[in-house]
């Protein structure tokens, strides 16, 4: 069964540094998402992306965050200047239609020190 893949599985960075989290959605999917989960807490929506632009974003997704689909396969989340509170598991997800359930990747655990 096709999967959403995310790299790296674990990223450690210093506060103030930029990080890029990478995702390869399922190949025929058109809708892409980033969610995050702070340890022990619920999964939170960050941003949705369709047709090469952001569809919706949450209050968490401020100017420090950006997303990009640089080619036909990758979908990236960039955090420009990381803060301690950005430490979380970041999940990429994709769907083939706007009303389909989400297929999540295995996540990238981001640790900001």
């Amino acid at each position, binding site marked *: 069964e096709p999967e959403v893949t995310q790299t790296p599985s674990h990223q450690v960075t210093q506060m103030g540094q930029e990080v890029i989290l990478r995702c390869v959605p399922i190949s025929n999917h058109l809708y892409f998402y980033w969610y995050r989960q702070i340890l022990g807490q619920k999964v939170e929506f960050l941003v949705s992306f369709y047709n090469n632009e952001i569809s919706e974003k*949450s209050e968490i997704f401020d100017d420090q965050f950006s997303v990009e689909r640089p080619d036909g396969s990758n979908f990236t989340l960039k955090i420009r200047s990381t803060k301690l509170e950005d430490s979380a598991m970041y999940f990429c997800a994709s769907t083939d239609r706007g009303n389909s359930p989400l*297929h999540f990747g295995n996540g990238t655990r981001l640790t900001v020190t």
Partner: protein
Amino acid sequence: GQQVMQIPQYQHVQEGEDFTTYCNSSTTLSNIQWYKQRPGGHPVFLIQLVKSGEVKKQKRLTFQFGEAKKNSSLHITATQTTDVGTYFCAGPAMTTDSWGKLQFGAGTQVVVTP
């Protein structure tokens, strides 16, 4: 803003017992989805309910969507050790254009004792 609440937060079950977890939204939902997350894993889609009052079964799991489309439940019969994990309900608000913009509940963490 929209809130999705789940109870209980934690469920300790003896193998073979039944249990139910409940989900309530502060706003009407266009649909409700349930996901399971194993320890250290990612959320995995279980089911989606769309119609008011809908009931769906998956083997030992029974999912229900309330008449007002604001609450849902998951009932597991004859719990097995493979049922261990956290069960999340999630739904998009009726006001959103993006059905993938989900509001997740806090989850019910299920521990099964053999």
